[in-house]
């Protein structure tokens, strides 16, 4: 009986946790539009615009479907992103944990993107097919420099657990160690690709391929897609903050420390997201082969330099 | 004008060379001009001279070297006369001929692509002919379509 109750409580906590994360993501989408508008010297929508948009889409009267793969692929994406968020420490607190979860997170991050690709492929729109192809090439491109940066961290802190990486950074963030400044710069550009912000908004390019994978989405499906997008914002920025900015942990012990850490985490992911938006508003779009070349030629080389430097620091 | 030296005929109108010819001579003239650096075929236009019972076809050519404009004009009867297609000289003539066939009903022998172009499923006479009564057509076609009235005024 006690195990059942505690299990239910755990489920409840996880549900609240995931919901809060999604809410933060949706809020960030609104804030993001506001920031972009201010950069364009416009007023911009209210910051709660994301909630209105999603409510409107969910409440649409007709929802055209393109078969069960199209319906389920979105669930697949949202599940993947929720699972990723649960495996990431937020303000030092995490709900699910295993040994070597840095690798697990890397795998989990591929699931939502694949689900998205599956749904877009099932919609049968040629623009979607082009967009999915571009999205997969982008994934292949940004993962190499990102993984190399992560490996550098793993070597330095001698662990494959993100929680331990976060714990080791208490008092001294990784980004303050010279080689990891390079790694962080590399990972930030990879983050730009993950969030599909310019100059790497190649897969969704609305002016070229009519928003690519999303071309056939509407109504509830597009609403779910926006929730998924909100989840990716939280997941990817949290991953970056956990790896390089100490996960927002500034205090230890007690419920007060948890609250403070949570606030610091919120500010940090907001800063990372804002940086990504400022890059987004300042640059035009790459072509897909330029993006590929950028990641594999320049970013990967920088990441390897940082890796060698870290290795040299560790053995000497 | 250089064009006048090349073909040895025509008169200058507003800085352009205007040549009136018979329809059999058009091909030879355009060929000569093309070989003498009049490499840009600008357009083919058609005028309906309904009182004379004739269509006037005007071929416009331009030279980048001499910066001169040549208009070669020929007249054919409105009814029962056809023009030879010249799309082997400049490929773009094919499209102009297609348009004129659609809008005026002039037939071009040798052009195999005279299919409907702008007007989809057009059942009447070519609309740019001057005897096409546009206002009557509007009245018969678009104004005769009834507006959709809803019985239930609530919607």
């Amino acid at each position: 009986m006690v195990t059942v109750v505690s299990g239910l409580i755990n489920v409840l906590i996880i549900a609240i946790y995931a919901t809060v994360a999604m809410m933060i993501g949706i809020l960030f989408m609104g804030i993001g539009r506001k920031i972009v508008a201010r950069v364009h010297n416009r007023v911009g929508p209210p910051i709660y615009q994301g909630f209105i948009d999603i409510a409107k889409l969910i409440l649409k009267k007709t929802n055209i479907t393109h078969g069960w793969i199209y319906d389920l692929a979105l669930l697949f994406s949202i599940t993947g992103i929720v699972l990723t968020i649960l495996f990431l420490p937020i303000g030092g607190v995490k709900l699910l944990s295993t040994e070597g979860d840095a690798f697990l997170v890397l795998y989990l991050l591929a699931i939502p993107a694949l689900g998205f690709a599956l749904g877009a492929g099932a919609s049968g729109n040629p623009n979607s097919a082009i967009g999915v192809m571009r999205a997969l090439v982008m994934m292949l491109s940004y993962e190499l420099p990102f993984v190399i940066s992560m490996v550098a961290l793993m070597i330095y802190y001698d662990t494959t657990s993100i929680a331990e990486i976060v714990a080791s950074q208490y008092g001294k963030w990784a980004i303050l160690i010279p080689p990891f400044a390079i790694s962080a710069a590399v990972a930030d550009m990879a983050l730009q690709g993950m969030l599909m912000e310019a100059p790497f908004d190649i897969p969704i390019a609305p002016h070229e391929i009519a928003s690519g994978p999303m071309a056939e989405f509407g109504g509830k499906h597009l609403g779910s897609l926006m929730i998924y997008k909100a989840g990716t914002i939280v997941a990817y920025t949290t991953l970056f903050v956990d790896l390089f900015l100490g996960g927002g942990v500034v205090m230890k012990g007690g419920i007060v420390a948890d609250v403070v850490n949570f606030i610091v985490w919120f500010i940090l992911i907001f800063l990372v997201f804002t940086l990504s938006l400022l890059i987004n508003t300042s640059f035009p779009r790459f072509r897909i082969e330029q993006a590929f070349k950028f990641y594999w030629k320049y970013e990967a080389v920088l990441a390897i330099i940082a890796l060698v430097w870290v290795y040299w620091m560790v053995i000497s | 004008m250089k064009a006048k030296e090349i073909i040895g005929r025509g008169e200058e109108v507003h800085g352009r060379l205007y040549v009136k010819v018979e329809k059999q001579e058009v091909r030879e003239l355009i060929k000569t001009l093309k070989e003498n650096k009049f490499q840009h075929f600008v357009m083919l236009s058609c005028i309906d001279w309904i009182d004379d019972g004739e269509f006037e076809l005007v071929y416009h050519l331009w030279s980048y070297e001499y910066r001169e404009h040549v208009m070669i004009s020929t007249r054919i009867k409105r009814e029962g006369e056809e023009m030879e297609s010249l799309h082997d000289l400049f490929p773009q003539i094919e499209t102009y001929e297609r348009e004129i066939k659609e809008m005026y009903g002039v037939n071009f022998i040798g052009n195999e692509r005279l299919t409907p172009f702008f007007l989809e499923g057009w059942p009447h006479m070519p609309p740019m002919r001057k005897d096409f009564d546009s206002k009557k057509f509007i009245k018969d076609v678009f104004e005769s379509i009834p507006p959709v009235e809803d019985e239930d005024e609530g919607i």
Partner: protein
Amino acid sequence: MKYEEWSKISRIASKKSLWILHFCTGCGAIEMPPVMTSRFDMERFGMAPMATPRQADVLLITGYLTVKTLKRVIQVYEQMQDPKYVVAFGSCPINGGMYWDSYNTINQLDKYLPVDLYLAGCMPRPEGIINAMMELMEMIEKGEARGWEKYRKNYEKYKKNQEMAFKFGKVEE
């Protein structure tokens, strides 16, 4: 929760987030960039341009329509998801405007599609567009913009009218 309250929430959400699909057929398209950019900024009302009909709520028809374009407009309209609104922009979709006696301009758009809001002018200024959109928002909140229901209800009549236009009046009874 009662249906009425629920549909009211849905209408308010719909009103505050109008996603527009521009069907840029005529000269009206040139008035849209100022409305979107920093001078007039329609995004402050939650309006945003969309790339495909599936995502959009408002079909903005900017300019005259020929019979050939009408076929495409109807395809686009039928791809959109309910609730959807049509805004006829400029004089041409109202009565043909300066092209009223052309052989190929369908003069009144609302014989073929249910138009929720007309925006007169040749061309309407960006202020006019913003004003029209505010008007549309009010209509949505009051539940007056119900062209999509009218289209569903009178589908047969609309189809018949569309067929007559496509065949230029030569339809067999």
